[in-house]
């Protein structure tokens, strides 16, 4: 087992708004995470869970508000990338490479020499497949390979977008275990999920509650146009 623990850190956002395609997805959204914390994002489809996760990762731009790491406002989002691992809907798996080669690439990219591909794959039940080309994996196994990135290259903040998709019960347990382990070591987790929850004692953030009412959308839209 890896014993690396993360230095105490906080990650927070205040007054966040995001506009996509002229539509205000959410506004005045605030969150705060400390070491070992987990936040579960809830909300109907289209309420902005994925948008918020991409915003937290620095992939999407903030329309208003600010985010802070350890209380310092984040300005360099390129550097912020080193604090986090993001698991999106796309698995970012290269079919031509083996499971181990895929994982070794991520380990080298994020420069974490302690990462061990075999160990990471084993944690997600892919230990027997390390030398297989990833193109032979099933959808669920591919997704587990994507999740193994979290283990092979540790970072304090995990942003997980529906990580339970395509996973069987055993894999969900494995996911719950690596999340619990990550939090024990002082890591933070933000997870968007509808279905079965894989986090214990997590705070819930209802993203849908920050969606402006239809009328307001029209008003903001017009006020900006004028």
């Amino acid at each position: 087992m890896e014993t690396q623990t993360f230095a105490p850190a906080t990650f927070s956002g205040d007054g966040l708004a995001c506009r996509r395609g002229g539509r205000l997805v959410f506004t005045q959204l605030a969150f705060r995470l400390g070491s070992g914390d987990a936040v579960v994002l809830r909300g109907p489809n289209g309420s902005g869970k994925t948008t918020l996760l991409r915003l937290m990762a620095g992939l999407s731009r903030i329309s208003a508000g600010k985010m802070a790491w350890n209380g310092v406002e984040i300005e360099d989002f390129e550097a912020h990338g080193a604090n986090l691992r993001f698991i999106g809907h796309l698995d970012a798996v290269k079919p031509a490479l083996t499971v181990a080669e895929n994982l070794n690439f991520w380990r080298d990219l994020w420069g974490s020499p302690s990462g061990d591909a075999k160990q990471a794959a084993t944690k997600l039940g892919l230990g027997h497949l390390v030398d297989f080309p990833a193109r032979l994996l099933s959808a669920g196994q591919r997704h587990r390979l994507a999740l193994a990135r979290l283990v092979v290259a540790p970072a304090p903040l995990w942003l997980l977008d529906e990580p339970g998709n395509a996973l069987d019960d055993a894999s969900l347990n494995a996911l719950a275990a690596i999340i619990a382990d990550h939090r024990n070591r002082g890591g933070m987790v933000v997870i968007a999920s509808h279905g079965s929850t894989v986090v214990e004692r997590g705070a819930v953030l209802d993203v849908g509650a920050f969606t402006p009412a239809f009328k307001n959308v029209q008003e903001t839209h017009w006020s900006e146009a004028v």
Partner: protein
Amino acid sequence: MSVFAAVLKRDLALALRQSADSFTVLAFFAIAVVLFPLGVGPESNTLAKIAGGVLWVSALLAALLSLDRLFTVDFEDGTLDQLVLSGEPLVFVVLAKTAAHWLTTGLPLILLSPVLALTLHLPGEGYGALLAALSLGTPTVSLIGAVGAALVLGSRRGGVLLSFLVLPLYVPILIFGTLSVEGAILGVSVKATLSLLGAMASFAVILAPWAAAAALRQATE
């Protein structure tokens, strides 16, 4: 720099594993060049006169063929998001991917060109200049192409759009590349044209990665 090394290593491994991609580029180059003797006729004088230009035009078109896929695969399978989150400036990722592109397409094109030059009866004096001009010019082709490939990311018919975007920018490379070969055949000093190609390469290596990185960030947003 771990980002540069990791991406370069992975792209080379992928190119090696999926060598069909690089092979297509080379095959296109060879076929395009070989079509000229068939179309123009086998008179060695005529062929020798156009050899430099034919080789350059075919090399540019062949390179263009592969640029389409430079970022598309990473964009579509989600890898690009992760590369943006590498924690290091995205410029290193662009440089690594462009370097890998040059090593897997530009370099093989250079190595193949003397053989194809033979089929066009290129006079012996032209070979040195051809290799030098291609060596200085193809890195610029990859670098400018990377900007174009990043800009058309996510658009339908990106390949066609890409040719409209980058082919005009390749004109100076084509002109000075061809002039170098012709100059060498005529016995004129080709220092000036080769220097210009070198200058373009230095200029491109400084500016193009930044432009491409900005376009990539736009695409992932």
